[in-house]
């Protein structure tokens, strides 16, 4: 039913000429795409901060090379916005083809910005990929709505993410762990200096702000829409009242913050922090396997739910190797690639596929994955809270910097 509606919308968009320029790479004609892709080089712009992920991308590149004759070059970014900046600069220079970025790992506000500026290849190609038939778009609404922005097939889902907290059971007993934002504040009062969050605009840090916002805001429906400037101050008041109380209890009394998640991980290992959090439920297990965290680290979530989202792959409107990018995006969506991706020894990123749609063989392979000692089972992960509209993130970030951006 949903699929049909989408098709109708797409047809309407095509009819209205929203499709943009006609392109040789039409995912609807897959045979032609594969033929055109052969011999192309795909510049895949993706965050390069984790060697596990880099190794996974190398593996995928090797597979696509041997199966389809497509070369993949991983352009390692420290911030996805750099790839967006490249496309912006190219557009500024009037370079509407032959762009430097072929495929980009993206979600949230970067996607919203590229979509708004018309920097994305379209129309809908994602739902025409052969492996789309396995995607769980029925029970995972974040596959079709990226931070409340409809994806409209302009990006293809790649993996899931959910906010999960970690602690060292050798230092912090399970019974003491907080189960909500309010309890976290109490815990920080009892353990001053042992909690912090990455300094916004780091996305893990702003995710924490959103988690608290969702828990404390009066009318949750407001978060699905852009910020209403008239009521923003009132809407966000509970969040900032909370942060005002929390800040002096943070690591270094809130005069400095960890830079990002790996920084927090290091600080958990060093004993500077006692509770940290990540956007990947398998992080703790893979860190233990890498000797970055002690064996005694465990995961926990809030029973009321934690933030969840999906991350995607998108193709810029001026990409050079669009066909190659389509082939790579499709391969990364295949059960084989998704299984490997969910393996905590390799990456540990939750799949976007619906197990029910897979063949019996693939399904049992997923079910038999050893998720690792510190990883919660899917049924222990608790409810997923939807991401607010990207507008909220921007406003809250700005307000955070205004309030807490200068230490005294």
């Amino acid at each position, binding site marked *: 039913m949903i699929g049909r509606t989408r098709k109708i919308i797409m047809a309407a968009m095509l009819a209205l000429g929203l499709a943009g320029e006609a392109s040789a790479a039409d995912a609807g004609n897959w045979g032609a795409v594969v033929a055109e892709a052969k011999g192309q080089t795909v510049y895949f*712009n993706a*965050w*390069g*901060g*984790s*060697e596990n992920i*880099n190794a996974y991308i*190398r593996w995928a590149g090797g597979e696509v090379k041997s199966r389809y004759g497509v070369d993949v070059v991983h*352009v*390692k*970014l*420290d*911030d996805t*916005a*750099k*790839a*967006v*900046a*490249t496309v*912006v*600069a*190219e*557009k*500024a*220079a*009037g*370079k509407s083809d*032959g762009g*430097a*970025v072929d495929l980009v790992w993206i979600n949230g*506000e970067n996607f919203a*910005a590229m979509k708004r*500026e018309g920097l994305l290849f379209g129309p809908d190609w994602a739902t025409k990929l052969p492996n789309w038939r396995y995607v769980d778009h029925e029970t995972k609404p974040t596959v079709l709505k990226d931070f409340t922005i409809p994806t409209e097939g302009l990006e293809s889902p790649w993996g899931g993410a959910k906010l999960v907290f970690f602690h060292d059971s050798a230092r912090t007993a399970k019974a003491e762990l907080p189960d909500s934002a309010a309890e976290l504040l109490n815990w920080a009062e009892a353990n001053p*200096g042992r909690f912090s969050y990455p300094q916004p*605009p780091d996305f893990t840090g702003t995710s924490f702000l959103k988690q608290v916002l969702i828990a404390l805001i009066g009318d949750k429906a407001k978060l699905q829409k852009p910020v209403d400037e008239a009521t923003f101050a009132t809407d966000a008041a509970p969040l900032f009242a909370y942060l005002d109380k929390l800040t002096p209890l943070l690591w*270094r009394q809130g*005069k*400095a*913050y960890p*830079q*990002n998640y*790996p*920084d927090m*991980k*290091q*600080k958990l*290992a*060093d*004993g*500077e922090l006692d509770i940290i959090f990540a956007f990947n439920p398998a992080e703790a297990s893979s860190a233990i396997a890498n*000797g*970055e965290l*002690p064996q005694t680290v465990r995961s926990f979530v809030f029973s009321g739910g934690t933030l969840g989202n999906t991350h995607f792959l998108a193709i810029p409107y001026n990409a050079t190797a669009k066909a190659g990018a389509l082939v790579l995006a499709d391969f990364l969506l295949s059960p084989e690639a998704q299984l490997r991706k969910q393996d905590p020894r390799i990456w540990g990123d939750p799949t976007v596929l619906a197990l029910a749609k897979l063949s019996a063989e693939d399904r049992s392979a997923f079910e038999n994955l050893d998720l690792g000692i510190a990883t919660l089972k899917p049924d222990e992960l608790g409810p997923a809270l939807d991401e607010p509209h990207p507008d909220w993130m921007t406003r809250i970030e700005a307000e955070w*910097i*205004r309030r*807490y*951006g*200068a*230490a*005294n």
Partner: protein
Amino acid sequence: MGRPISKEHEIAARRLNANTLLALILGLPILAGIAGIILPAFGYMPALGGVRFTLRHFAELAGQPHILRSSLTGLAVGLATTCGAVAIVGTFLAGFAGTPIFSRVQHLVSPLLAVPHAAAAFALAFLVAPSGFLLRLVSPELTGFLRPPQWLLPNDPLALSMVAGLITKEVPFLFLIALAALPQLPLRQSRQLTAALGYGRLSGFLVSLWPALYRQIRLAVFAVLVYSVSVVDVAIILGPQLPATLPMRIAQWTADHELRARFLASAAALLQLGVVLAAVLIWLLIERLARLALAWLTYSGRRLRNDAVPRFISAFAITACAALIFLGIAVLGAWSVAGLWPFPRALPAELTLQTWLRTLSPLWPALLVTMALALLSAALALLCAILLLHRNGAADRGGDRPHHRLLYLPLLLPEISFVFGLQILIVSAGLKPAFWSVLAVHFLFVLPYVLLSLAAPWRELDPRFERVAAGLGKSQRQILLSVRLPLLSRACLTAFAVGFSVSISLYLPTLLIGAGRLTTIATEAVALSSGGDRRVIGVYALVQASLPFLAFLIASLAPQLLFRNRRAMRT
């Protein structure tokens, strides 16, 4: 008589033109880069709908929280770093040049230039942080700490750790530049003379040699000033974060997901230009005051014989710079092979080669690109510097120095501002991001350092050598190739090594101009360092540091080997 002289003028004019042309070819991208930020700063950037000139973005900039504090912090960091580095290097040269301690410290400090800023900053952070190596050494035995204390270090709001980190890196740079200039000064004679007049070592050096030495290292001092006012990577690692310094915030804005932040970033880049200008003006004032103080000292006739304390402090400071970085690099090395390493253990609980094994294979292609860029850009820059200096020497003496100043522009502008403008220029010229465009930009950044490093020894070479050779009937080219260049071989090799290491550490230009397609050790290291994994940082920092280190090793050993039997060439 009129005819031949006009012919001479013609030749000089032709040389001047070639010179001007060269300066233009190199200067144009810089000017374009500046234009590339000025236009968006005033609202003009059609791709983002900015077609009308406006001051709105400056108003927006002024409305940014804590923008004044960010700007002032950067300014203060730059001035403090430059004062500190000049004071340490100057005092040490004055106190020890020509002594055995001097040559020992010289060998200790010179390799430090090879260590990229980011790696040095990490090294320092790994040492002094509450969970760092120094505290681990004495914990819990002396301190009783079982867990790291809540000290705000590094990233302290006063930016002291950032200044310390920058000084440890700028001291070797200034020291090496001064070292290249030192042989041209009548060191021994002045020392004997001032000692005979009863001056202390410091005051004797100051009144007799310092003004001439400072003149020779002055551009390098300004480069240090501008660099430390505008630095991004060291600020991220060691600098204050609440608020961050202005360059760091510009870097964040240029990468902002909100594309319109680019207007703001451009306005801020112009503001940064203003901050740099303010820093330069303040430094000129400091220079003037220092000159007055020195003149007063000279005319007062005071001998200041009791200078043991400042001499000791300078020797200690310069040794500490070296010791901190070497120890820090050792700690980076330890992290690269560490398994679990919890506080307060002084040594890793387990050792493993895992990090190296999984890092080396992706590192290899980046290493090749890095080497190719560094070798080619340093070689081209050296060639260009030699041609430029040769032409200048042949043309009217000192007649076209200002063009040289243009070449120093990349050092006197914040990287962050004009590279973004350059990126737009290169893309709009229809150039594909490729090895060659990145090489060209590397060349642009490398040339000033090479020129800076080579110009002083070039000008100071005894001109009579060339006159003797001319009298022996040798042509200009023969004199260049068989007299000047061999005599300056050490200076050339040093200049090459300087260029090589500059190329190795270039991050922002490589990333922006290469559109991220060209991965070098620097782009890989910074991408990974944003992941904060101390083990991987350890691997990359070691590799990145070892490359220029090798170049400097060759630069210092090659003359020893080449001129094994020529005593005068080995010092």
